[in-house]
């Protein structure tokens, strides 16, 4: 196993590496998940098989007869990403036993959106993890079912207006909070769980590689802004993924064998709380939270801030980081 410093993840090396997620896919302009996938496919180490649940990234990358994947790629149904991965793992095991493949090790990446993980795929994922198959599960979280027209999922945050939780005069968008999926996966006693954001690309690549090198299942929760569903400017997709970390709405951490550890981009805000930005800054640039800035639903932003702070505090406690007293407060 290579150490972290031996991995060549400088911008130049990454740029020189050939794309395994080809251009010419039909994602919207400014698609966050497409950037995420391009970056993830730059971190693979050898022969890789990708399996994909139904979702935006499955649809835009495999419009018949074109494929954007330069690696073997498999798709079945919405709930099956993890089940597919465990099937591939079992098949590889028996092929290796019969000496039918020449590769010593083949990496398996299972890809799914938040709908295919939070709601539909969690049963298959939980089962695959429990059986201990060796694969990396990547959840690209764009916070709703964007592929079918922006319906709310378990990953949609409080107050977000979607087509099945529309903001009106009575209801202020979605009424429930986001499900802490990564914590649920940590509770499975997995060898590796992490959250990542495309703005901190090196952090993301290192986490992908760590997840692939680990023996057994690994889970990666990647934040992936969707300009279409979030009603944001396509040019701001990467900026939003930075803001989410800076406001601590989406903190970056990893849990190796259940031990929480804060990643460097988030550690900055733990050690210097005055740098942490208010949640409003993140909400303001998105059209799906537009109604939160009307007098009627104004209180909801305070509620979002409160829950964000609460979760952030709880995370710091888990990571064993002591937050210094706020200097400004």
């Amino acid at each position, binding site marked *: 196993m290579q150490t972290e410093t031996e991995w060549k993840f400088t911008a130049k090396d990454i740029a020189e590496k050939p794309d395994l997620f080809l251009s010419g896919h039909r994602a919207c302009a400014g698609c966050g998940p497409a*950037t995420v996938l391009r970056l993830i496919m730059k971190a693979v180490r050898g022969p890789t098989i990708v399996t994909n649940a139904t979702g935006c990234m499955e649809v835009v990358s495999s419009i018949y007869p074109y494929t954007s994947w330069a690696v073997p790629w498999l798709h079945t149904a919405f709930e099956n990403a993890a089940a597919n991965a465990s099937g591939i793992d079992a098949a590889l095991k028996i092929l290796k036993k019969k000496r039918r493949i020449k590769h010593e090790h083949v990496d398996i990446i299972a890809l799914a959106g938040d709908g295919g993980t939070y709601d539909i795929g969690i049963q298959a994922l939980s089962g695959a993890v429990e059986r201990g198959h060796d694969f990396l599960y990547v959840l690209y979280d764009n916070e709703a079912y964007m592929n079918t027209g922006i319906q709310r999922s378990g990953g949609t945050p409080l107050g977000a207006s979607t087509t099945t939780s529309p903001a009106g005069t009575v209801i202020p968008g979605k009424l429930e909070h986001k499900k802490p999926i990564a914590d649920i996966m940590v509770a499975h006693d997995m060898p590796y769980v992490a959250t990542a954001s495309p703005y901190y690309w090196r952090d993301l690549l290192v986490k992908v590689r760590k997840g692939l090198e680990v023996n057994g299942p690994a889970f990666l929760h990647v934040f992936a802004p969707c300009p279409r569903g979030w009603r944001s400017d396509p040019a701001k997709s990467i900026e939003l993924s930075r803001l989410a970390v800076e406001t601590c709405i989406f903190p970056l951490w990893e849990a190796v064998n259940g031990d929480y550890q804060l990643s460097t981009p988030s550690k900055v805000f733990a050690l210097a709380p005055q740098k942490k930005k208010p949640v409003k800054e993140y909400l303001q640039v998105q059209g799906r939270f537009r109604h939160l800035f009307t007098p009627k639903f104004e209180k909801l932003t305070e509620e979002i801030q409160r829950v964000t702070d609460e979760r952030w505090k709880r995370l710091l406690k888990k990571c064993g980081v002591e937050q210094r007293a706020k200097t400004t407060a």
Partner: protein
Amino acid sequence: MRVTAKEKSWKEISPAGVCWKASTQFLTGDWKTYKPVRDLEKCTRCLLCVLFCPDGAIHWKPEKGDIEFDYNFCKGCGICANECPAKAIEMKLE
């Protein structure tokens, strides 16, 4: 660019849902309204635009030591212009 019905009959294509063409044959550049134009003097070659482009439309050419825009695939989203630390990229109406 686009597949015509005559290209392959059903007997010749691969079975049930197997995609056989690389999507690089499908040029997505005709979507764009704005196109990125780079100021060569301001550019520091930090390569952030290459990493953040969702379409892989910006290539790093090691032999030239410079980056190159591939307008065949660029959808004109403006992420490169927004993320450029030197503000060297400008989105211009095509």
